[in-house]
């Protein structure tokens, strides 16, 4: 019962913190952000410094740690996580990509992960324009791949995603708290 009351209060809080003055939506607690490869593509484009076309873009929301234990706590081990907050995290390939040997046609996808202590399973799924992972269907998976977890010395307060080039791969680095994980993508 107490749990139910808390759930109810939480839903109300979530609802009311999303509505601001004059009924228009307030700013999200976990702000949305974008990352690209090439990194900072729109800035480079504005400065006429592009050396290669846009390959990939991720749209995700950035929850904050705010003193909480994240991995194994807020993000439970072994459970599906939307890799963000609010809307499902979206990854768009502007040209065909290869992940774990699987060729992925260009287009928009959603991105999820199952987080464990030593490995994360990244999941690319076809269902777009969706909220979180609540209606996730494995039948719509395009690829799943396991990636080892790395530790980082400088912890990240906000969930952070950035593309980094490593040899032939373009890694999507996902960092939060004191860990990071790199999903290798090649084009």
């Amino acid at each position, binding site marked *: 019962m107490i749990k139910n009351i808390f759930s109810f209060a939480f839903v*109300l809080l979530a609802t009311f913190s999303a509505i601001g003055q004059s009924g228009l939506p307030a700013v999200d607690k976990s702000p949305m952000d974008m*990352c690209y490869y090439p990194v900072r593509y729109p800035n480079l484009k504005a400065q006429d410094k592009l050396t290669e076309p846009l390959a990939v873009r991720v749209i995700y929301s950035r929850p904050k740690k705010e003193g909480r234990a994240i991995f194994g706590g807020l993000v439970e081990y072994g459970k599906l996580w939307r890799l963000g907050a609010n*809307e499902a995290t979206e990854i768009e390939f502007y040209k065909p990509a290869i992940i774990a040997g699987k060729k992925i046609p260009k287009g928009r996808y959603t991105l999820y992960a199952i987080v464990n202590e030593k490995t994360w399973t990244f999941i690319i799924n076809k269902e777009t324009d969706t909220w979180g992972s609540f209606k996730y269907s494995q039948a719509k998976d395009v690829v799943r791949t396991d990636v080892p977890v790395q530790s980082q010395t400088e912890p990240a307060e906000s969930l952070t995603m950035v593309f980094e080039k490593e040899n032939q791969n373009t890694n999507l680095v996902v960092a939060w708290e004191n860990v990071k994980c790199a999903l290798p993508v090649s084009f």
Partner: protein
Amino acid sequence: MKIVKQQAPFLLALVLLTFGCEQKPKVEPVAEKVTTPDTSNKQQAEITVNPYASVDVSPMDMSYFPVDYPKIKMANANIPPPVARLIYSRPHLQRRALFNGILKYDEPWRLGANEASEINFYKSVTIQGKKIPAGRYIIYGIPHNDKWTIILNSNIDSWGLKQDASKDVGRFEIPVSTNSVSLEYFTMVFEKTDNGADLVIAWADIVARLPIQF
């Protein structure tokens, strides 16, 4: 909504609590000031430790039509695709005046911050009699004293400060009105109308509506 009315005092307390919490000073062991590359954001960059990408002062947000489409889809997986999705960043007033403080009359504005604001139409729509094919566009505006010009442009994935007018797809003049409340954060949202939706563009006490038919 019935529940909401009955629980109003309780809710008010919750709301106050929520906003109160957000105003707490940040307690971080090691703080390093990180500025974003855009000059308009240097006023109050987030103080944080992040080896990769700091959080933007003007957070990004998304508006769908139908409103809250991804949430509706949770309850009904078989609904047709959305009509429109807008992705924009939300600068805030921070005690500045909107005009002659942040914006200048008759000068193009990206209707946001950082990246150009993006609007995606999942099917073709009509704006002021002009057919706009399904697809992705950027949207920017030129505020005037008595009206705004809203522009759709095909130069997608671009930074907002540099518009290429040669790629304009359509220009639409809309009236502006003043609102009784002032919005701290720039806000864009769709509102249903009889024959489509208005894109409501609001900041400070200014409101402009772009009617879209579909």
